[in-house]
């Protein structure tokens, strides 16, 4: 087991390096740079863009240097000092910006995961056990419906309903009076009051998919001989179900745990933008749009690192449950 993990870790290093280079190149591929955006805004406010000023600012931000040198500077900063660079637009160290938003991202991801599993697994079981019944058809219909509706549309619809019919303040994770307040019981309550809407909106899509997976897996198991044997031995239907087929059907779900980590950073960007959530998604989108190079680069690097770690965790979990994998 240990050599297996060690081998995987060694492979991760060149992967990371390659990813960081590709990320940096991709960020620089679109024409223009951060100053192009800034100067366009300036021009629209009646300003004239002076070539000298732009050149001086480009030099100031180090944008006049060749790409490989910029990459070297960025990487050296990360490896030697843990310094991911400065966000041009927000004038703050990148690490500070990411950390301040990572908490909410993580919270949202975990809550969504809990919600999805808590709802999808029972429904999936029900739908498999009562195959082709009214409830199965209803659940199947709803599952396909929510799978088909784009989540940003669902976000807009949900916010409209909550705002117009129920008069709730939507968007963000807090009411205006709590936004700048320190943590208190009231703020926690306010958070709970707001967080369920994005959780449901983000969760519904994957929930639908999970219901279908659960149903299909379970149906495969239900017809296997060991189920018939167990039933013949007189075990109660419910106990039988939970003890054997459901446990096996859950296996594919466990291997998806690895995907959760990168999704913490990049997941549901559009929903977060539409609902103005203080997560890393909108930060990444804006950094890419404004060509805020070091912020975008660091976020993409972070996503890559988390993807690699996530895959590693999945592999280890699989190796633990299935000895055959360790041998290859």
């Amino acid at each position, binding site marked *: 087991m240990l050599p297996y993990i060690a081998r995987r870790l060694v492979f991760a290093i060149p992967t990371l390096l390659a990813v960081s280079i590709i990320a940096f190149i991709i960020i620089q591929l679109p*024409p223009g740079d951060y100053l192009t955006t800034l100067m366009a805004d300036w021009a629209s*406010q009646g300003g004239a863009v002076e070539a000298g000023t732009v050149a001086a600012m480009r030099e100031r931000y180090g944008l006049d240097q060749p790409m490989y040198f910029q990459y070297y500077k960025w990487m050296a900063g990360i490896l030697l000092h843990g310094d991911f660079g400065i966000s041009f637009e927000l004038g703050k160290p990148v690490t500070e910006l990411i950390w301040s938003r990572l908490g909410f991202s993580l919270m949202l991801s975990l809550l969504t995961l809990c919600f999805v599993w808590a709802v999808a697994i029972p429904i999936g079981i029900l739908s498999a056990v009562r195959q082709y019944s009214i409830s199965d058809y209803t659940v199947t219909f709803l599952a396909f419906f929510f799978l088909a509706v784009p989540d940003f549309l669902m976000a807009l619809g949900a916010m409209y309903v909550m705002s117009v019919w129920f008069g709730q*303040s939507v968007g963000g994770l807090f009411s205006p009076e709590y936004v700048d307040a320190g943590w208190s019981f009231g703020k926690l309550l306010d958070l709970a009051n707001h967080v369920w809407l994005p959780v449901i909106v983000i969760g519904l899509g994957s929930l639908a998919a999970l219901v279908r997976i659960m149903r299909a897996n379970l149906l495969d198991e239900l017809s296997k001989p060991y189920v018939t044997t167990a039933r013949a031995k007189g075990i109660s239907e419910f106990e039988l179900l939970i003890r054997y087929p459901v446990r096996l059907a859950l296996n594919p779900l466990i291997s998806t745990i690895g995907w959760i980590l990168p999704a913490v950073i990049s997941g549901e960007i559009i929903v977060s933008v539409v609902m103005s959530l203080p997560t890393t998604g909108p930060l990444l989108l804006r950094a890419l749009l404004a060509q805020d190079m070091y912020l975008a680069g660091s976020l993409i690097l972070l996503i890559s690192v988390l993807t690699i770690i996530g895959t590693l965790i999945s592999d280890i979990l699989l190796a633990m449950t299935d000895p055959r994998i360790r041998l290859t």
Partner: protein
Amino acid sequence: MGYQRKLRGLVVSTGLMGIFISGLAGVSFAQDYHQAPVLEEQVKAGKLPAVTERLPEHPFVETMVDGVGKYGGTLRTTILANGDQYNLTRTIANELLVRWDPKWSKVEPSLAEKFTASDDATTYTFTLRKGLKWSDGQPFTVDDIMFWYEDVFMNPALSPAKNPTFTVAGKPVKVRKVDEDTVEFKFDAPYGLFLQQLAYGQGHLPVIYPKHYLSQFHEKYNKDGIPALLKANPAAGDWVALFNSKISLTFQPAYWQNLDLPTMNPWVLTVPYADGERVAAKRNPYYWKVDSAGNQLPYIDNVTWAKLDDPQLMALKMTSGEFDFAFRHINNATFKSVLFDGQESGKYRFVDVKDLPANDAAILLNLNSTDPVKKKVFQNKDFRIALSRAINRQEIIDLVYVGQGAPAQVAVQPEHELFNEKEATQYTEYDPAAANAELDKLMPKKDGEGFRLDETGKRFTINFMVADVFGLSYPDVMQMVQQYAKDVGIDIQIRTTDRARLNTMWSANEQDAYIWNCVGGLSEVYTDPRCYMPFQKADIFFAVRWAEWYANPATGEEPPENIKALMAAYDKVNASVTDDDRKARMKEFLSLSADNFLNIGISRPMPKYMMVSKRLKNVVDGIPITGNLWHPAPTLSQWYFDTAK
């Protein structure tokens, strides 16, 4: 009324007389200035000097729209989460030496109490109000302006290129301190438009640099202390970066991230425009304006901006009554019906905004194209006229702009004194037959598909860059134009792109043509004729090489005589001193520009709107806004909530 009379008395009498009279009356005359209750408490607690000491000797007396207001309240508005810094500028900044009156008809004193222009339009003197103070209570004096001039504007590291507002014929202004309250701006060549320029937003430079605060970050004043400051600030590598992180010219993001920066604005920031979920500002206790009853402005205590990532959410929150005011991002045709229906639940009303550019969609053919064949065609005025006549403008307006607009060229708006019917509507009638006849003369040969051939015998194709910006549906407009052009045998290929790519293309002079909106619909045309002639390099690029030549004849490409004549006509506008002369010259210039017919306009814009709470009073209706006229600030300082105490 009584207050007004006493106030006038205060203005004419000396300060000593004032104290004497008030002594007799048994009431302190100083109390004729009033302040907000929150400040009253701070004065009583000894945290703040009395209101008379905070105000200048002669405060700016604001003309009220509805009348004297009431103190208190928080103005709730909204801002895009990123890149929307000019929203802040247009809400709480825009305090200048001289300002445009809210109707945009004349330049009036602001921070300067008086100003004079020399007869040759080269020398301008400004007398500051005595006793002006920055928002931290330190005096605002001529020395601050000199600090900007000597240590920022003339410093090659901080200002590698000189801002064109303060430059004439390539030479920067000379600023001189005359005495403690008087400063003189002197130019080498006549610059009759200087006062107008200074009254626009971009004229803010001399008055945003507080010397007492910023000199600590300047090499000249604090050479020894800077290394320690740099160490504490990881984002800055040298003193220039440090200085630029504390204040930013043109109100770029850094300006709104520094809470320590003293300003002359009605509200000062308390929560920066950075990574939080909102932005907030509170009243400036040293603000230098009063109403006619001597109440210190602003009336409203606080301003808060909810930071949102998406305009859809802005509209939703507006209709659910979470904002008192919004004017950007949701004031276009897309949102109008939703916002109109939401007036009841959102408790707001619509206020007209005269945001009237010269054209909403102008076709800019590159007259300096690097392709010699295309250049020759584009430079042919008859070709441009034929293309203009081939376009069915009314159909575009009906289908794309839901009827909001009128067929027009790039021209001044009908409501303005410079309006000329012929200039606005020449060649706008839809006449494909005439267009075809004209093109048959220019490019008679066609290929098998009916497209015209250029002189080398190849199909003449215009690669048209189209970016979907300003909510003006340019891709839809261009698809229609493409069809009209095809009807007369011109091949237009649409290249959809984004703004950043377009920016790099036009900077490198790589585009054949693109579509953009054109400034210059109202008085800004005097100072910003970029759509009427090859002018500054910003946004409008139909003849960038000629524009370069105009800025500096050593660069660019020498234009033909007709363009030189047009440039000379504008130079005459700039050299004129009196308003009447300037207007006459401008009319000549505009007429000459129309004769040259440099670009093809499609639709004349209609007024836009903003939303304000039904409780808000003193809101200027029909306020003009343009790119360089940064309204509605500073008129917000007189807004008040009718229910506030």
